[in-house]
């Protein structure tokens, strides 16, 4: 059975692991907004990746955190792993 990783899952994990950013935060259309502009730095993404790995039982490449600069990119990277896992 394959699981999905949605924007809502990502928002929940960001909030749990790194708190809510100032300003408009996670409201609005953020799927293509840079994490830095949303208010999350590289350490927040490291923490997020670690929580995703734990929750979904996957191991992300070390490059994912560095290269996935938007929610969409991270969702795609995680989804690809989940597909691999299901295959």
């Amino acid at each position, binding site marked *: 059975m394959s699981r999905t990783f949605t924007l809502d899952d990502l928002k929940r994990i960001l909030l749990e*692991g790194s708190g*809510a950013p*100032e300003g408009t935060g996670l409201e609005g259309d953020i799927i293509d907004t840079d994490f830095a502009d949303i208010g999350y730095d590289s350490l927040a993404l490291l923490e997020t990746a670690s929580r995703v790995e734990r929750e979904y039982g996957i191991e992300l490449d070390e490059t994912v955190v560095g290269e996935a600069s938007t929610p969409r990119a991270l969702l795609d990277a995680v989804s690809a792993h989940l597909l691999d896992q299901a295959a």
Partner: protein
Amino acid sequence: MTASVVVTGLGVAAPNGLGEQDFWNATLAGKSGIGPLTHFDASGYPARLAGEISDFTAEGQLPSRLMPQTDRVTRLSLVVADWALADAGVRPAELPEFSMGVSTASSAGGFAFSQQELKNLWSKGSQYVSAYQSFAWFYAVNTGQISIRNGMKGPSGVVVTDQAGGLDAVAQARRQIRKGTSLVVAGAVDALLCSWGWVGLHTSGRLSTAEEPTRAYLPFDDRAVGHVAGEGGALLIMESGDSARARGAEVYGEIAGYAATFDGREPGLRKAVELALADAGVTAADVDVVFADAAAEPELDRVEAEAIVEVFGPHGVPVTAPKTMTGRLYAGGAALDLATAFLALREDTIPPTVHTEPAERYGLDLVVSQPRAARLRTALVLARGHGGFNSAMVVRS
């Protein structure tokens, strides 16, 4: 003639008062913050009393993003820094970022945070350790977070010399200001009242295991049996006298003199006092009050009393230890004593040493029970750190 370095703002968090005014009122009233430990179950430990800050909540005072990445000590530090800046009437966002620095001392870093993450490591595995553990535990974390929150990119650092650190960090800030930095947030807050920190504190052999809060921490008393540990401290806004005058800031007073020594064959405290007085350009007769380190361990009390008597003569100067109301706050304690000294100078009032009945053999004029009104212009603050650190600082209104 070196330029004067002055204090224009104070932020205080103590077991007997949150905020400068609460703390000062409590201190004059002789209100003690020492009681049974509640942060964790301490029933199985030899020492079970502490000076806890019971009414502090960071939520609402700090952004959500900071909560998962900060230990209690850092949250306290950030809020106390905010209070100090507000007290000084400084808005960091309006000042050049490289003109401001942060100089704190720390005795333990973020202990409760680390305890939780080590527990995760051992019980669940490395993938359960927070990425924020990478810095949340670290001695320099309070300096770093204050620097980031307030956009202060000038010279910054941390000093780790136990209780003496509270003075050493302020001395370091004075050096940076003399070298050209306009403003430094300086001092210390310590908070390590978790079970891991508690085990560590016991290794000093200096924790009081007395059960009664009024009999647990009695410096210079024949009944002295060690100290009670507490949490909290103070941060000071330090500026050059010229820049404080230029912006019309209210000034608490000046960091007039400082010296640090290390114990060798002989204890180094007296030498630290003499060097600090010389650095301030004052003599013993100019000092109106001494804030004692007050270890409450018979040998250490003797050494401190001898140093004071040798420099000032028997009963030669009023001595006080308001930390009997808070417990020893380690680096935070010396910074709090410094803040208390400035408040005492402003109010011409020496706060009391509570609970203690001083032994006559020490030859000290200890201000006990009640505050004492006195014309105060110059105060001396003493602090010793475990392992042989001695620091002395002279402040002047």
